[in-house]
């Protein structure tokens, strides 16, 4: 039986007239078990791979190996399907004309691998059609509790309009979770990130085809270890208060604010997808009407809900004080993750400006990113930034853009921009 806990890190003291309360809430799950083995219902997994013409012989062979590795990780009893995608989507497994999934067992695994082995590279790229088919395939099995897909592409979504992709994403939102991967340098991080963000998944770069199998194996293993099909973060704020934002800050930065679903007038729910034995940190910011010095009040109840039952709760408090030594302190966790979130934004803005040819903005933004990475001790980010800019002074964020930069290095910096380091508590 999975157990959740919620720990709050904050400085609850506000100065006279202060209104904004910030807190980091660490949510931890233990005893999650395995996918599809909880009482909530069956799990299902779909492997979606790009088989467009650009994949070529090498990449197709790597995809075949990676898909096989993924299928090896799918637990027996979990519903399974494989979709081959180009400018249209094709259900490669189960073989046949109907929308269907099959429960994984030895025979199903062998048949799926055989289907994968027949893949060939042909046609264009229309990821929206892949998502739409996946949505329908999942829907063919009634009562699934946990639906996860892995999506691999190597190129730009050329054979449908951005609007068509958006519509497909909206159609899939809330239906299944999807981790997305791009192989090589010819895909667009922003485009694929749009899918991953909407479908509560990750986005990452696979630089070389031979790395694909290990990556797929890891993704499916993680998916199978998530025995809690769905949990949501609930944020209560008092009457007259305003939730400024709700942001996941670890292991990656994700703004959850627009995902709010109303539970009641004072409480919003933010879906967080499936959970294994893990911790995730959330930054919650609430604006309150100021009270008199000496007053105390609750700024927020931050709860974890599974199947509409609250399983953990953390309290974010506000206490007005005229003691400067109390009110001027910034909680280290809040400071750290505020910096990490700004770092992610600076990297993405900087790379976007660079791509648009705006060298000045790119230099300023990436310089700020270098400064923040140094301040928050994010050495991985510093290493990736170093490949894009020459650092003159990390403390002041003084950098110069490198003349020749590898496209893959730029994409690696972009996809990793949202990964945060944990604060030492």
């Amino acid at each position, binding site marked *: 039986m999975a157990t959740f806990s919620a720990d709050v890190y904050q400085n609850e003291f506000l100065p006279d007239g202060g209104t904004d309360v910030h807190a980091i809430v660490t949510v931890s799950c233990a005893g999650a078990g395995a996918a599809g083995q909880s009482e909530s219902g069956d799990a299902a997994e779909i492997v979606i791979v790009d088989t467009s013409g650009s994949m070529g012989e090498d990449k197709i062979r790597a995809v075949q190996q990676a898909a096989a590795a993924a299928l090896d990780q799918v637990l027996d009893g979990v519903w399974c399907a494989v979709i081959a995608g180009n400018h249209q989507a094709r259900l490669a497994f189960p073989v046949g004309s109907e929308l269907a999934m099959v429960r994984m067992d030895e025979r199903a695994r062998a048949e799926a691998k055989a289907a994968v082995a027949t893949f060939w590279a042909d046609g264009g790229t229309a990821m929206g059609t892949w998502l739409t088919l996946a949505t329908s395939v999942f829907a063919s099995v009634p009562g699934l509790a946990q639906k996860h897909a892995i999506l691999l592409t190597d190129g730009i979504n050329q054979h449908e309009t951005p609007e068509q992709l958006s519509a497909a994403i909206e159609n899939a939102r809330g239906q299944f979770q999807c981790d997305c991967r791009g192989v090589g340098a010819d895909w667009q991080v922003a485009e694929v990130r749009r899918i991953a963000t909407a479908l509560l998944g990750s986005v990452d770069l696979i630089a070389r085809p031979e790395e694909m199998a290990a990556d797929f194996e890891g993704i499916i293993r993680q998916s199978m270890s998530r025995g809690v099909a769905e949990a949501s973060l609930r944020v209560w704020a008092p009457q007259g208060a305003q939730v400024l934002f709700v942001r996941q800050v670890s292991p990656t930065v994700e703004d959850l604010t627009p995902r709010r679903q109303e539970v009641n007038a004072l409480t919003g729910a933010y879906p967080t997808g499936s959970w294994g034995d893990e911790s995730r940190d959330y930054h919650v910011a609430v604006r309150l009407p100021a009270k008199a010095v000496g007053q105390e*009040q609750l700024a927020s109840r931050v709860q974890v809900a599974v199947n509409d039952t609250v399983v953990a709760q953390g309290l974010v408090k506000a206490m007005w004080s005229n003691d400067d030594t109390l009110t001027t302190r910034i909680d280290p966790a809040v400071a750290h993750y505020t910096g990490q979130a700004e770092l992610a934004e600076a990297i993405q803005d900087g790379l976007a400006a660079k791509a648009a040819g705006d060298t000045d903005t790119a230099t300023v933004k990436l310089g700020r990113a270098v400064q923040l990475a140094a301040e928050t001790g994010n050495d991985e980010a510093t290493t990736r930034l170093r490949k894009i800019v020459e650092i003159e002074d990390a403390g002041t964020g003084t950098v110069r853009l490198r003349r020749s930069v590898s496209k893959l290095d730029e994409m690696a910096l972009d996809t990793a921009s949202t990964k945060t380091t944990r604060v030492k508590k």
Partner: protein
Amino acid sequence: MTEPGVGGVVGQVEPSVGDRSQGDGERLSCPSCSGPVTAGDRFCEACGAELAPSPSSAEAPADEASAPADKPWGARSCGECGGDVADDGYCTQCGARAASPRDHFTEQPAPWVAAVCDRGVRHTRNEDAVALHAGREPGSHAVLVVCDGVSSSTDSDVASLAAARAARDVLAVSDPQGQGTAATRVAATAKALESAADAANEAVVAHTSAGPNPASCTFVAAVVDESLLVVGWVGDSRAYWLSDVGEPQLLTIDDSFAAEQIADGVPRADAERGPQAHAITRWLGIDAPDHTPRTASLDLSGPGWVLVCSDGLWNYCSEPRDVATLVEETSRGSGSDPLQLAGALVDWANAQGGKDNITVALARVGAPVRTATAQPTAASGLEPAAYREEVPPDGNVLS
């Protein structure tokens, strides 16, 4: 913080009134930890959980009274907006911190004895506690116990309440007569105070959870037995005798760093404002080297007030004469009902800043308070009441 107590316990009369025997009450169990609780308890002594106000035993049908309450916590309403209060202690609508019954409560076992215990302004918890017992006949027999939980330790609010009640329960049923002389009666009462401190200390230890800051509290108990007043204390909670006509007296000597300085000649006002003024040198708790109370006794020759209080009051008014003046002036507004007067004194301390939890327990001895027109005439001409303080070097009470 200064509103009337939640839970409707003002003026509650304990079943033991009149016969000095502490009735068992109905044995119930705490819905939170299953520890034993008694009907009318507002908190579980084991875990400190708040208990729903239960109907008085007179109203409750017998079969219901012995059954555990269905609903552990009475539904509470927010004092700010009227919304429901969640189990986490905050309003579900406006988020205001709900006043806990533990934050402010009163006792009045008989019309002449009462106490008010209050969180104050600055502290987030009320770690003070009070427990009273009184015979119905004014001036007959009363027990006033105040314990002040040490705020740097864990669970001191639970421990202090358990300690005060344990000591009260010991003293309520003890009827020390000695061998008929005043001296042996004092000695026997002092002995009972020692037993009471033992019981209080055991209660603190029983409510000490593992951790680096074990629960601890001060202890002061005053026993009024007709014309005899005996007090025992550990720490810096105090007992005063405020005679209507004689010199007001502080009966206790704080076990504190400040008191040691006073003994060394530092003026009281300076010592009590020093940086370590509140460092106590003796206390109850698992880490207490010695919890034997020091005792003092007094022959109550005339009418007056027995005042037992925590430092939440005397921080703002310490010298006996100042305390007497404060009580006198306050009673002009509040009247001479001890509950009203204790409440008014708590209000006064809160108005001074309420830096600490505040407990005021009062017993009215002798005739009712003189009216404002009956001014004292020859107070200075009267003999002050006899005052002795016993501090046996070996920790034993006087024989």
